[in-house]
């Protein structure tokens, strides 16, 4: 297993590098436009771009960029977050996104799994129908719609604050109260997703032969479900949990925009639209690395959950 993990890790580095190269070439191929306002000296503005070296050939810029990265200098924002260090700004914004998503995870994973299992056990009974319809509603309504409804009903009409509290006292009580609305909006989607997926997997497993065998062996319904059905159903569910964990870093762009969460969600989109190269490269690398690491974790988890799937075996 160790040998396999190392192999996968080297492969990940290779993939990361190739993705980085592709992203760099892609972002540099978008045209850089000089906007001459009234009373501005066009020659001077063009000079600024020249001096930044953005008119040099792409590969030359890429080599210098790689050189900078290995010295740990991730550059300074030029348009979007002008004059701020990419790394510092990102780290300043990360806690807000983490807080929201961690609370959302704490609520949605257990509730989602619980509902999924309950629905699967009570298949086609009224509880199953109720849960399924509830799940459908939250899956099918776009997040910016129910996020807005939550803000309107809970915050405007109810007593909760409209936006996340100012300040960086992340774990204080006021912060928790101010964060309830975005957390709820974020967790509806995840709860619905988990519930639907768990129910689908579990119903499939419950009808398989080994369950029959387990019951004939005399296991009680509960024991059979937990020991056999759940473990087998976890094969596809576990990566979803990991995938959700990766989502934490990405942050939900729409929820952060509506509830004024100073998170990292918006950074990535802005870096593309304003062609802020250093921010874009840093964020692409960061998200890709997290995604690939999660990919490896998921593959390893197969072996752990279902011994029969030993990775690498023919």
């Amino acid at each position, binding site marked *: 297993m160790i040998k396999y993990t190392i192999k996968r890790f080297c492969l990940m580095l290779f993939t990361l590098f190739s993705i980085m190269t592709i992203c760099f070439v892609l972002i540099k191929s978008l*045209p850089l*436009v000089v*906007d*001459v306002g*009234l*009373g*501005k*000296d*066009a020659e*001077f503005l063009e*000079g*600024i771009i020249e*001096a*930044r*070296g953005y008119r040099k050939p792409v590969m030359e810029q890429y080599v*210098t*960029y790689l*050189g*900078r990265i290995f010295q740990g200098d991730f*550059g300074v*924002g030029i348009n979007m*977050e*002008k*004059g*701020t*260090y990419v790394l510092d*700004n990102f780290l*300043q*914004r990360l806690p*807000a996104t983490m807080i929201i998503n961690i609370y959302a995870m704490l*609520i949605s994973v*257990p*509730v989602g799994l*619980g509902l999924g*299992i*309950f629905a699967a*056990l009570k298949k086609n009974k009224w509880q199953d129908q109720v849960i399924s319809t509830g799940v459908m509603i939250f899956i099918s309504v776009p997040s910016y719609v129910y996020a*807005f409804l939550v*803000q309107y009903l809970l915050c*405007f009409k*109810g*007593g*909760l*604050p*409209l*936006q996340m509290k*100012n300040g*960086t006292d992340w774990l204080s009580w006021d912060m928790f*109260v101010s964060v*309830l609305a975005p957390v*709820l909006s974020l967790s509806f989607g995840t709860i619905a997703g988990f519930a639907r997926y768990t129910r689908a997997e579990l119903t499939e497993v419950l009808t398989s032969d080994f369950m029959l065998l387990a019951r004939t062996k005399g296991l009680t319904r*509960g024991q059979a*479900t*937990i020991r056999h059905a759940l473990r087998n159903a976890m094969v596809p569910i576990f990566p979803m949990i990991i995938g959700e964990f990766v989502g934490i870093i990405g942050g939900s762009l729409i929820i952060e*925009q*509506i509830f*004024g969460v*100073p*998170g990292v969600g*918006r950074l990535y989109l802005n870096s593309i639209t304003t062609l802020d190269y250093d921010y874009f490269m840093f964020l692409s690398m960061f998200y890709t690395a997290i995604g690939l690491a999660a990919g490896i974790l998921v593959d390893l988890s197969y072996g752990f959950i279902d011994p029969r799937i030993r990775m690498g075996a023919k």
Partner: protein
Amino acid sequence: MKQRKLIAVVAIVLVLVLCASVFVACNKDEDPRYLATTKTYKTYASSFATSWNVLDYETSDQGDMFSYSSSGFYEFDYKFDENGDVVDGQFTIVPVMASDYPTDITAEIAAEPDNDYLFDEEDTGYAWYIPVRKGMTWDNGDPIELEDWIYSMKEQLNPLFMNYRADSYYSSSTVIHNAKNYLYSGKTIMASDDGLIAAINGGADFYFSPAASNYLFGPYGGLASSYGILPTFDSLYNDYFVVTYEEQAAAAWEAGEDLADGAIKKADYDTLEAFTQAYVDYKFTGAGASPLRAAISEVYTIIDTLTPVEEGTAAGYYLVTDELLAALDAVSQGFFGGNYGWAMCSYIGQYPETTFDQVGLRTIDDGERYGLILILDVPYVDNGSHFVWAYDFGGNWLVKPDVYEACKVAPADGSELWTSTYGTSIETSPSYGPYKLTAYQTGKYYEFSKNDAWFGYSIPELSEGYYETDKIQCSLMEEWDTAWMAFQKGDLAGIGMDVKIADEYKTSARAYFTPDDYVNTVQIQTSIAAEPDDGIAKEILLNTKFRKALSLAIDRVEYAKQCTTSSLAGFGIYNSMHYYDVENGGVYRNTDIAKQVICDVYAVDVNDYDSLDDAYAAVVGYDLALAKQLVAEAIAEEIAAGTIKATDVLDITYGSSVDSEAARRPYNFLKAAWEKIFEGTQFAGTGFVFNYDGTHGDAYANDFKAGQYEVLSAGWSGAAWDPFYFMMAYIHDDYRYAQGWDPRTVKVTVTLNNVDPETGEWLGEGNGETASFTMDALTMWEELYEGTWAEGECNVENRLLILGALEKTVLESYCSIPVTYSFGAALRSYQIEAFTDTYNTFMGWGGIKYYSYNYNDGDWARYVDSQNGQLNYK
């Protein structure tokens, strides 16, 4: 067993949520918020700046950040009548960091030994002494020294940083002596200015490039194109040659004479057309062709044999060989009648090595005078109201030297630019204004609190009875709806009135309306290549009658209602916010000259009405009958001229930076309006294809100028107090949307009084005579802006006559068709009152200095809770 545990988990979570909201709601009476006595101005922004370096800022978000923590030399203030009431529409100028108004010391400075100034003793307005207050300090108590301003200007123009704001001290109204030379010190560029002769005589190499050489071969084609070598545009060709030849032929035909000393005999031709055509051919390709054509093609054949310089300053140029020079001389012979081939070349010019002490900004502290000396290349005119000082020196370029030095960041490899982290956090934002930055969370909120060390608080006329606001809090709210809910819960001091709530709230007692100097125009593309047989009739856009029809087809009242949130029908380049004489409230649009222009352009005959005002009021800019007639005439003309065919389809595209419901409203409106006037012509029904292309993003302006699409709704705003300068946006090559319409070829006639008939110079009231002048639009504008009729050289009446003639010319080109004037509508919270009920052009609504409070924060919280958390602004 399993389910019970799960249900328990769900229950706990729900209880948690419920008690949290209950806790927040019921905790009312002993609320600490009621005790607060501070007065906080709470506002919001939809986007945030992360850095606000006064030397390098680009956006208005960044500008707002340091507006609270800095002071200008001078600022506008209200004018009060004797019993203390505000006089509407007037202003006074108050020295803030300056201790008194500037004095003109041009003569004293001109007397300095061997100076390189552009003025001498007799001139005025070039050099000024600005007295500065003593004893001013930064927010941490360090004194503000005169040297700080020198240090700051040195950093503003520092070539290593290339700060974005550097060019505002040489390329707009404030031109500090040698500022550009210091910024470009030692830099090499290709130049063809008067230094060319000295360089050539000095034996330096000189280069030639068709694209970059002077007017002859320039991008606008010049003569080369008129000989069909660079087929870019032919209107010059028409004016300089064909028109003259046609006139000569017609005159000869009337008089019955022959042309070209007998070469073209009148008797040989039976129709004038044939006679003229023969004469034109003779003058161009026939025996009489001037040597110019041959010479120009010779230049191009030589260039093909040479190889351009690869890189360095002269990249893309050709080193001028003797053979090339001879060919250039032949061209200049044909055109100028002399061997001036060299005048079409460029040399590698170099900006002089300039040290900062040569720049026109110095300190003076000789016991009697304490302040700054400013030396300009373009004079300032201060006719007593000191308006120009508040207009140009309301802001400030001051930075704190020790903090700024610490914030310098060396260039990362791959780039040669230094950057700075000045103005990105509390520590790097020293304040010398009424407030200082006390809290900043990136992407969330910032807060300014009173800066007790501000010198202004100890000066009664600057702060007595003002600055009631203790704190300014601004939070980021990207969604308008969230801000609207926050406003109704009393968390915001004001909010813009979105169209969704306009019906219910526009008659609210707390609504206020702000006029804007933005004029929205429909731009019609005029740089269109002639392709007669491509089945598409785009060329008809070049027909002025057709464009006039497009303009008259727009019902501007309906356009304002249907396509915009808050605007009025608009007819001219300027609206009611453009002042030609700011000091005594002279609005250009309200002058008789301006009204007459509008009546003429929109075909309203003044004699049909009792007065000019009545005629002006009757202008609707919408005349379906006339528009239909013009369309028919234009089509007939173009078919006759062969530029379009009777079967052609008008397939044009409306371009925009974004594709959204709101962005499409003008497109839908124009489509319906133009379809109506095309009825009965070949463009009716499927003959008119109008596409929408919202993929241009920020490059929409450059794409339009490059001719990528045909219709754009855009506009200009800014320079509301200098309409003469603002005309640049419609005439100057760099800014003009109508690239196909060349102001060099359009003749403008204006009749001025009290002027010298030859030079047009204004000779003062009573002397000189009334004379009319005809010149091309661009030259007339240059004369108006900085030539014989510039401010200070000519009286206002004549300048207005010229401006009117220019506006009429631009409007009658129908390339930029004004449609609406816009203004803003907003709601103000019950907590705060503005200083005046009416809008003042210079003071706006007063700003933070003048806000007064009906409630302090504590009482406001109690009042909001008494309305159970939701205020009614209907």
